[in-house]
């Protein structure tokens, strides 16, 4: 059974039918839910919002939805690899490559990135004493562009097949000569669209952090998460254009018959260089914000000032800077010659120095503290040894001759999962548990949180530690199977067991959200964790203007200083007066929608879709340029939970 969808033959086999069915059922469920609980209005308010914390919630929700999808892909991958020459459902050969590519691409671009950006949206304005981001409209637009890109990559599976060339999409494999199906077009368009959103976000946070700090919030008084956001924004600003160029070349080669990346007419190494000039900083784009979260969480729950604040900041900047000088270590086996390999080996190793500084500073922050083990702290503590394993294997990978053995083997798969899951994902969970009460006004259940943490951490080590050994036993990455005589069965089976344990752990997390939403007490006050930074001086959830009066800040950890030395109040920097707030608008969502239609038209090569998309986007841009988006005046009210000004 099959049908044609804009020239692409879609065969209705069991997995595709299951895909359509799940989309259909989830759609029905969403409509029923929204209607039954009368939530259409609430949804529409979120669609139109330009407010940073609501955009943050949108980012977090979409990110977690994609997390479930990409996690399902991971379980399919692990099910296929559980036994030698296994035939799980249809996921061998090309279908396996679709799963593996979607898993990687989604996890990097549509899970880790939006969850990190979501937390930035939630926390950064509060941490620096700002009422919103510098460009609220742009912020909403960033989200909708990200969602459009993510939708393209995710829908591809049922509309002619997902991308198949890995998340790195190496050419010539990714060119239409070798992968003529539309999958890799979805890759190049999806990432371009979401990439615009990411770039806009970076500009937004740069301007916000530079310009919108409350009086006295000097750069060297900012919390580490804000610092990490600043450095990350600079990395995005310089790294993403390289990806955009690469994707553009790929798109032209695939769709319009140019040969820039082809092996004969062009040069396929251009792709590798451009991709990794983006790709390596991308790793730091993912990990630096997590470092920031850990710094904030560890100081809060160890009840201590951050050990070596300035060297922590310098280390962040240094890691960001060095992150641009190491991309060849992904290409040691290309054969670029011993000199370039040696130089990049040394630059790669040098990143271990600032990273080491950070690890030891965290350890010495804990030393002499009074540690409470709430869920955010557990995730942060679990991070330290897990991430160090990923870090030391990173140094091992930098030793060029040894890398000839590790490269593209399961050793590398183990390594980067230790870095990204053991670093970024644990950081995201720490951040979510930490800022959840601030965002929603109730806590996530700590007992369920601990169950979530331990099952996740143990599952994580069972899944990924064996991968190092698989690599040393000769298992290349991205294979859909192996032979019984390879001696890899036990390791792979263990890894699969661990993966399903992590899947179960995510169910505990979802259950926790539901349980806490139903049963958690609603009175958390302004400061449930006995925090140190100024986001804990305002009510939870904060009013839409965040601060009725902006606080005046005299030091880092200003809120902790105030609690300790100034009877628990911060000085106000202004009198109560009406505040200009941005208006809601549906235009960002509409631009995202037209971008989706246009990109879809490019992928399936249907001119009227392209035209509608183009006219829609340009029309809305023109409209927005000539129309005053307006501001509304809001009169702030003081709140008993607000610890700024007065009551001296």
């Amino acid at each position, binding site marked *: 059974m099959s049908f044609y969808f804009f020239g692409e033959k879609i065969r209705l086999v069991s997995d595709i039918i299951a895909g359509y069915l799940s989309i259909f059922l989830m759609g029905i469920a969403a409509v029923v839910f929204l209607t039954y609980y009368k939530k259409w209005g609430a949804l529409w308010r979120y669609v139109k919002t330009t407010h940073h914390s609501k955009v943050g919630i949108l980012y977090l929700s979409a990110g977690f939805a994609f997390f479930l999808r990409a996690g399902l892909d991971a379980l399919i991958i692990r099910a296929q690899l559980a036994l030698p020459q296994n035939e799980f459902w249809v996921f061998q*050969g*090309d279908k396996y490559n679709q799963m593996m590519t979607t898993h990687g691409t989604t996890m990097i671009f549509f899970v880790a990135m939006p969850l990190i950006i979501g937390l930035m949206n939630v926390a950064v304005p509060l941490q620096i004493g700002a009422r919103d981001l510098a460009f609220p409209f742009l912020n909403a637009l960033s989200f909708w562009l990200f969602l459009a890109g993510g939708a393209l990559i995710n829908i591809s599976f049922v509309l002619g097949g997902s991308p*198949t060339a890995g998340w790195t999409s*190496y050419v*010539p*494999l990714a060119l239409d000569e070798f992968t003529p199906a539309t999958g890799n077009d979805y890759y190049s368009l999806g990432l371009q669209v979401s990439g615009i959103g990411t770039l806009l976000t970076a500009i937004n946070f740069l301007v916000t952090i530079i310009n919108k700090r409350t009086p006295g919030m000097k750069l060297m008084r900012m919390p580490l998460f804000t610092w990490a956001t600043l450095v990350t924004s600079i990395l995005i600003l310089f790294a993403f254009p390289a990806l955009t160029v690469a994707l553009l070349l790929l798109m032209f080669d695939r769709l319009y018959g140019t040969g820039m990346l082809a*092996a004969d007419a062009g040069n*396929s190494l251009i792709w590798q260089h451009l991709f990794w000039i983006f790709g390596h900083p991308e790793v730091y784009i993912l990990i630096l914000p997590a470092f920031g979260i850990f710094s904030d969480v560890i100081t809060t729950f160890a*009840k201590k000032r951050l*050990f*070596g*604040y300035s060297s922590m900041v310098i280390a962040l900047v240094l890691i960001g800077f060095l992150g641009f000088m190491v991309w060849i270590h992904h290409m040691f086996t*290309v*054969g670029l*010659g*011993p000199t370039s390999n040696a130089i990049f*080996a*040394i630059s790669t190793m*040098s990143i*271990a120095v600032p990273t*080491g*500084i950070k690890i030891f*500073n965290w*350890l*010495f922050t804990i030393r*002499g*503290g*009074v540690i409470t083990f709430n869920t955010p702290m557990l995730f942060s*503590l679990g991070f330290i*040894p897990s991430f*160090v394993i990923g870090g030391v*294997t990173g*140094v*091992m990978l930098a*030793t*060029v*001759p*040894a890398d*000839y*053995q*590790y*490269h*593209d083997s399961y050793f590398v798969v183990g390594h980067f999962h230790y870095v990204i899951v053991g670093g970024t994902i644990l950081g995201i969970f720490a951040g979510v548990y930490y800022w959840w009460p601030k965002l929603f006004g109730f806590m996530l259940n700590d007992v369920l949180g601990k169950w979530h943490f331990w099952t996740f951490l143990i599952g994580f*080590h*069972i899944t990924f*530690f*064996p991968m190092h050994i698989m690599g*040393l*036993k*000769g298992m*290349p990455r991205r*294979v*859909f199977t192996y*032979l019984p005589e*390879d001696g890899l069965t*036990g*390791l792979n*089976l*263990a890894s699969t067991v661990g993966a399903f344990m992590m899947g179960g752990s995510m169910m505990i997390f979802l259950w926790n959200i539901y349980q806490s939403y139903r049963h958690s007490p609603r009175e958390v006050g302004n400061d449930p964790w*006995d925090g140190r930074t100024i986001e804990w001086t305002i009510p939870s959830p904060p009013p839409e203007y965040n601060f009725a009066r902006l606080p005046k800040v005299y030091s880092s950890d200003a809120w902790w200083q105030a609690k300790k030395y100034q009877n628990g109040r911060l000085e106000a920097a202004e009198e109560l007066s009406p505040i200009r707030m941005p208006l809601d608008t549906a235009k960002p969502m509409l631009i995202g929608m037209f971008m989706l239609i246009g990109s879809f038209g490019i992928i399936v090569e249907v001119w009227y879709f392209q035209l509608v998309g183009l006219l829609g986007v340009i029309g809305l841009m023109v409209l927005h340029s000539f129309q005053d988006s307006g501001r509304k005046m809001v009169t702030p009210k003081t709140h008993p939970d607000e610890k700024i000004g007065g009551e001296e």
Partner: protein
Amino acid sequence: MEKMNKFGVILFLLLLTGCSPAKWDVLNPKSSTAESQLSLIQLSIALMSIVLITVTVLFTVFVVKYRKRPGWETETENQKPGDKRLEITWTLIPILILTILAVPTVLDTYKLDRETKASDGALVVKVTAHQFWWEFDYPEKGITTSETLHVPVDKKVIIELTSEDTIHSFWVPQLGGKQDATPGRKGKLSFVPNETGVYRGSCAELCGPGHAYMRFHVKVETESEFKAWVDGMKQPNKTSLTDSETKGEEIFKGQCLSCHGSQGLEPKVSGSPAPHLGDFASQKRIANVLPNNRDNLKKWLDDPRKVKPGAKMPSFKTDFTEEEKEDLIDYLMSLNVKEGEKR
């Protein structure tokens, strides 16, 4: 708690694998190149263990010692902002450790490169990667083979790599680390195997749907065995063929020879579109997927793509009668260069 878990996990895994790390391919080198790579791996593991152990010990001590206990103050007076001497210590010691690692890394990188470039009487093998099989050309010997690369022991081998289609990567863990086979580029790699045996190799760069089965073997043999094999490859099948084998050879010439070479037979299409089958019967598996026996060979002929995703070979299900298939299989099963090992 956490330490206990990790320790348990490692122990559990060692039990599961049921063998010592000394048997893991990368840690069990059989060539000069793989040995020098292993020595760097060992050095880096040793140095990194120092880091890992230091961090783990400090972490455990601090977490245990400073956990909040009943009766403790909720606040600590210890709000030290930092300590210059400590911070300089943990900047300098890592630099020292990394220098100890960086020096041999750089030296070995250049050493391996020099060894690869110096020909000094080495056996040169031109390796061309195809979706999803490896072609081995011996330009000095005038022979071509696939699936099993034969090389003599204790003699330097230089592998010259290129690709016909997508990027592949040549990796034989026990003989040395990998090198990419990029279309339009030449990759080079060398090693001196120091023990006879058969070693597994695979493609390490994602190259398409059949990537997992793009495997091969390297057979390291004595000089005389190698000579005998080369001679065998050059000569037409020396044993007299049975009736059915002769019929099979005719079918092969009619249908298969357009793409596949065989003993004494060159493929009609130039540029090696398919693996050379001159030593087919000695292969352990068909297309590196199914164990090499008659039933599986029939399965393969009927539907190659079902057996190996992305295989270029078309189905011959309807092209032959059952009898013709039997004859062809008889012929293919006779293609064994080594006398006496014939099945």
